[in-house]
């Protein structure tokens, strides 16, 4: 389970607990949070490595612009963690480099 995180949830708005899995670890998030917020609050990361230099990265802009928070969410690679809300039982994996272009067009 999560180590220390610099991010603290405000007590003002207690939302329902949502359980998600990050790299196989169970963490608790709050309803309405983004995956990026939940992962940061749990003190996990880096959340991806870059395709060019394999440098480690973590969520940054939290508003859909910088693409630093790419993760594999419920099997969908290169998903923007900051633009995806948590849902019960969600499976999150960190994005390692470029995704595979899967030829599974139906």
């Amino acid at each position, binding site marked *: 389970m999560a180590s220390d995180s610099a991010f603290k949830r405000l007590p003002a708005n207690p939302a329902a607990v949502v359980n998600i899995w990050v790299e196989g670890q169970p963490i608790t998030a709050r309803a309405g949070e983004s995956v990026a917020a939940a992962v940061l609050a749990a003190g996990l990361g880096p959340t991806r490595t870059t*395709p*060019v230099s394999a440098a480690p990265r973590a969520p940054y802009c939290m508003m859909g612009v910088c*693409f630093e928070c790419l993760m594999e969410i419920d099997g969908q690679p*290169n998903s923007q963690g900051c633009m995806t809300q948590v849902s019960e039982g969600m499976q999150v994996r960190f994005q390692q*480099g*470029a*995704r*595979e*272009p*899967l*030829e*599974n*067009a139906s």
Partner: protein
Amino acid sequence: MSAALTPGHSDVDATVVGGGLVGLAIALGLQDQGRRVVIVDEGDIALRASRGNFGLVWVQGKGDTCADYARLTRLSARQWRAFADDLTDATGIDIQLSQIGGLYICLSDDELQQRQQMLASMRLEHNDDYPFELLDHTALKAKVPAIGPTVAGATWGPEDGHVNPLLLLRAMVERFLQRQGQLLTCGPVTRIEPITGGFRVHAGKQWNESTKVVLAAGLGNKTLAPQVGLSAPLQPNRGQVLIAERVRHFLDYPTGHVRQTGEGTIQCGDSKEDVGFDCGTTTDVLATIAARAVRMFPLLEQVRLVRSWGALRVMTPDGYPIYQQSEQYPGAYLVTCHSGVTLAAAHAGPIAAWIDSGQHPDDFALETFHGQRFSV
């Protein structure tokens, strides 16, 4: 003209109007000849074909109605490697030049047949010295396993290639500045004043003097050229481009419509629209580009788009460049073309040498690109 070069203000050999790929290539070529060069650039409000393009160093099919253009294009492609190496050695920026051949993919048999006929007639015109190959679906699939099952085939051009156009622009700017080039970003040039012994280039309240002036301002050349006795009958032609997320490498070769960059990004494009100076995007055109890209490479269906843009090509009536010195005001030159990436090596080489010394290149007839061809 009444005014003359101002003493102490006139130690510049050439002013290049326009800091895009064309202007920078000319400026670098003039620096190679030991000249002191100033580039006057409009800034980021400019229409900037250099920031919107597809990054192809493309040969096959270019100049199908103008043999000298095919020669110019091939000359530039041959000189590109040395040009790129020089930039990389000097700046440390890898501009991702790859020239291992390119594909023009044809969806239908008709399209493929027309394409082959066009290239075959070019081969005839160039006395058999025009390399290309026709690839049927099976041959294409062997080269590019990701190709879609309904694609008819492709033509293969061994001299084709591609480059990262944004890194190229950055490397050229750095190289120019390294050699004490002055890049003045001061808004649009408002007036070019021929003076005794040279030209005074005004941009708002600023001005700059030099013995030569080179117009490389893209679509902006249209209004600037008449001020030095030249004519640039240019029209904008919009291309829209789609960018998809980075994926693991699957495409070794650039194609006319889809390419994969060194970082894994997918770029799709090649629309052509006559919409004036509107550089926006439209859903219908983007959808058409995306649908064709998916037909060519079905795996793209599962790949997400991340952005799109429109950019304006700089087109003459026949699509070929204008390289011309003013007869009325010698020392003023017009350099304008659509293919600023492909022709960059030629612009830095023989075209800059011609501007510097008047010497004409051996490989093609420079007169072919005189603007007089449009004033019958």
